[in-house]
């Protein structure tokens, strides 16, 4: 950074000249300077150590999760866990395939609902609605982005689940309820990030397209959205990460039965809810199986993160 270049004064020169200068005064000055230098170095190292804490935390987290979660893969068998259909931890079957499937289905469903509605809302706020309206709506969306997920889950339990029950029967606790409530939950994230990236598209693109005779709507779909695509993709991947990682809101509405769902109206259990529900009382191999669930989740998230980073880097190159 700029300071680095500026502060590289020729300290070695002042040291040399100090050696030749025999007056006491400059000797004291020199000592102070050295003392200052030492203090500066110590504090710089404190700053460095602080930033190493992130690395250390990540390493410890990874080690502890993998250490506790990978042994069971060798004891029970990798395929018996990943592709096992039955989760009966007290009887020794630890199949988590139904939960992997439920997590994937919930994530895909959530993303479809959240992205289609959220992206259109972002277009509305950035391009179509009057400025004053956007000014009122934006703080409301920020507020909703900050509301704890458990509040969404509670709303889902009280409102969405009974609606599904009365329309389709079956109690209402279902994959569909989880998808709807998570879809609503990720809307604020998608809207605010997509809106920002739509707004950052250079005005010339829009003006050029309009000048060529395209209508405003055509310009939005054929010029502006393609130009903002890396930011939009980043918001989608971020939303997917939130959907696959969400726990409490899902537990409240999905029913938590560890079985293979046959339809959207079936009860199911995700990877996250499996951990949260059983961690409190699990012992021994059962606990290890829950950590194995954590390992699978961790791997999913890592893949999503890598994808996200690629998009962010691309977005950085574009602008």
């Amino acid at each position, binding site marked *: 950074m700029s*300071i680095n270049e500026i502060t590289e004064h020729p300290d070695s020169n002042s040291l040399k000249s100090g050696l030749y200068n025999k007056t006491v005064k400059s000797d004291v000055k020199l000592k102070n300077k050295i003392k200052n230098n030492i203090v500066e170095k110590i504090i710089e190292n404190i700053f460095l150590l602080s930033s190493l804490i992130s690395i250390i935390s990540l390493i410890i987290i990874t080690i502890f999760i993998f250490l506790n979660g990978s042994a069971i893969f060798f004891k029970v068998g990798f395929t018996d866990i990943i592709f096992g259909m039955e989760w009966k931890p007290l009887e020794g079957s630890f199949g988590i395939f139904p939960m992997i499937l439920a997590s994937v289905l919930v994530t895909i469903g959530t993303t479809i609902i959240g992205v289609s509605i959220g992206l259109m809302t972002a277009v509305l706020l950035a391009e179509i609605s009057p400025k004053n309206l956007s000014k009122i709506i934006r703080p409301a969306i920020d507020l909703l982005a*900050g509301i704890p997920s458990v509040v969404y889950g509670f709303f889902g339990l009280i409102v969405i689940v009974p609606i599904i029950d009365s329309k389709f029967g079956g109690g209402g606790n279902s994959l569909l309820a989880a998808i709807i409530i998570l879809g*609503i939950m990720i809307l604020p994230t998608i809207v605010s990030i997509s809106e920002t990236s739509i707004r950052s598209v250079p005005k010339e693109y829009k003006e050029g397209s309009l000048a060529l005779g395209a209508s405003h709507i055509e310009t939005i779909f054929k010029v502006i959205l393609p130009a903002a695509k890396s930011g939009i993709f980043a918001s989608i991947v971020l939303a997917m990460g939130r959907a696959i990682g969400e726990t409490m809101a899902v537990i409240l509405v999905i029913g938590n039965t560890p079985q293979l769902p046959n339809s959207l109206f079936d009860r199911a259990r995700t990877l996250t809810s499996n951990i949260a529900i059983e961690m409190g009382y699990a012992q021994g191999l059962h606990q290890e199986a829950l950590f194995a669930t954590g390992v699978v989740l961790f791997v999913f*998230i890592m893949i999503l993160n890598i994808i996200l980073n690629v998009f962010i880097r691309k977005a950085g190159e574009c602008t």
Partner: protein
Amino acid sequence: MHLKIRKIKDTILKTIIWICGLITIGILAWILTYTIANGISHLSLNFIFSEFKGDKHGIFPMILNTIYIVLLSVVISTPIGIFSAIYLVEYSKPGKMLSMIRFAIETLQGIPSIIYGLFGFIFFVTFMQFSFSLLAGALTLSIMVLPTIIRTTEEALKTVPTSYREGSLALGATKLQTIIKVVLPSAIPGILNSVILSIGRIVGETAAVYLTAGMVTRFPQSIMDSGRTLSVHLYVLANEGLSFEEAFATATILIITVAIINLITGLIAKRISKSTVGS
């Protein structure tokens, strides 16, 4: 003819956009009004300030637990976060070290809270033998909010004009003096913002706290005591299904807290934009 089809297409798409926007706004407004309308009637001083014991179903212990966890986490994570941000912006040089730190921060940010909970449970609760305690919860949350604090503080430090630094150095100040007396004071609103953002995340967190701080509803005696935060309380109330009125009231308090936090960050953001325009 062709023009007509284009016009119809435009109108259809525009209608779809408006419908989607109205769905978003409608649903979000529905959640807010529904929760608050149902919660406000149960919200009384008695509910807020009484304990949770016997027939008393107050939430005062939960409020205290939440405050304790917020304070502890902020005290732990803020200095570390600010120091790291200073290192990253002012000292670090491009290289392997820097990209490793960046990678760690990005990854920590993406890890879901249940994994933090799992880690806190096995590391702080079991391995370090803190048992279910406010301290274990706060330490877990501190790691969780660290990326937020570092990133927001970094942004704040980056907005301090280079000319400020150059001026200070030209006057003979050392690099450290420049950082403490010139850079940090100009970045204070942004740093404050990062702390408030992380408070919002801590208040709203459920999964990680539930697995590390436990769910005891007593008044906490020390930071080694287990305690239930407001969000965990809402989860338990909703899950047990015993009293939805209390759940609505708790949800309302959470929403009000978030609203206050957003109001403060909004004010700070306004101050930041004013001061940068002024310079």
